[in-house]
């Protein structure tokens, strides 16, 4: 079974239609500036993807941590794990 990081990468490429191979995305590649070049609308697209496929909601309470949460695939995976543990 693929790691959470791997699943997130696949969903990311699929949800955003990125013109890049899943393998080319490193766990720590910056998603935004300096890396994949995603923007504020893509943040919301990723949030929708997390909600739909990982059952994890980003709430307004998280708004202070956006940069942290969305920094990389690795940070997204950590966030998902954190939320899934909290609801377990």
């Amino acid at each position, binding site marked *: 079974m693929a790691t959470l990081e791997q699943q997130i990468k696949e969903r990311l490429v699929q949800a955003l239609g*990125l*013109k890049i191979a899943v393998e080319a995305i490193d766990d720590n590649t910056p998603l935004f500036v300096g890396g994949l070049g995603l923007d504020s*609308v893509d943040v919301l697209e990723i949030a*929708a993807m997390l909600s739909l496929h990982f059952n994890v909601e980003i709430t307004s309470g998280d708004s202070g941590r956006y940069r942290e949460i969305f920094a990389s695939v690795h940070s997204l995976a950590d966030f998902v794990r954190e939320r899934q543990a909290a609801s377990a």
Partner: protein
Amino acid sequence: MIPATFAADIVGAGALRPGPAPVTRPAPAAVAQEQWSAYRLDDCTEQSLSPPGQIKRMGRGQAMAIAAVQRAIDSCGAPPARGSATAVSVGTAWAEEGDEIIFLENLIRFGEKGAKPAFFVNSVKNALASQLALTFGFQGENQTFAHDALSFESALWQGARLLRAGRARHAVVCGVEALVEFQEIHGHLLGCYGTDPAPLAPLAEKKRAAGQGTLPGEGAAAFVLTAPGAVAAPLARLVGVRARGPLQRAPALSTSDELALVEQALRDANTRLGGVGLLLVGANGDPALDEIYAQVAQRLRARAEGLAVGVYRHLTGDFATASALGFELAVRAVAGRAVPSEVRVVGGEPRSIERVLLYHVSSAGYHSAMIVSA
């Protein structure tokens, strides 16, 4: 040059056309046939059309528009400047509808949780014009015209209008349509298209069977316009655009009404029919529509012996803004003083082309005449 009350110089032109023949594929369950055919930009997905280095997804219409505009700019001697002196005018009946359908389908499949924000943003119809502004840095007046077969003509009119009013130094005008599965379904269900997979043969001897309609297509063409005289050697000069919609739904088309439009366009442009070398028409192989085109062409040829008649939708398929691709061929004809080899001449003997008259009419009754001059 014949003076005109309405003019703009065309200093750059570029087009993306589909493959030379329609592509036939299995049809979805929604339509009542096993296979369907369309003129497609073969192997040109948004991925391959996107500017190099672009990782983020771009809508197909956006990619096509950018590619066409880039070609038009590349063909310019002096490209239009970034900033507010360059206006953008896009004609597209459906814009990035593919993304709107993806948004809606996800909403239906997954419920409201499935709403995809990036696809909503892209589905707003000015997504092509604003992407052009973003990509090329054009900050002048920016308009998207989305009115079926009047869309490109309105965009062209507005570009010329702006330049004459001194509100821009360059106008980038684009007509574009990206074929979307839902559009094809829509067209089939409404009887616009049929099951005959053969390439279109507008105004040909051998006609499509009655009820076969035409075939869908896609493409993009872009033009860089300046005020008349701004540049020493433009490709061509636009001297008139006249585009009108019907005054009732599903009107009965009449040859005399069509001729009246063409004659008025010639008068507006201060142009005699005798000076026109090529009548380029948007006949699309639909037997009923071909008949109107044939009558109009015949009547015009009877008045001007030197007039050759050409068709081009066998290259593009049928779509609301295909007239933009016709326009690109007309510009090339005037620039090269000869009919481009892709145009199929169906009447008359083309001589040196100084003026091209484009004439279009659709089944819904939208019609237009555009005149391009050396």
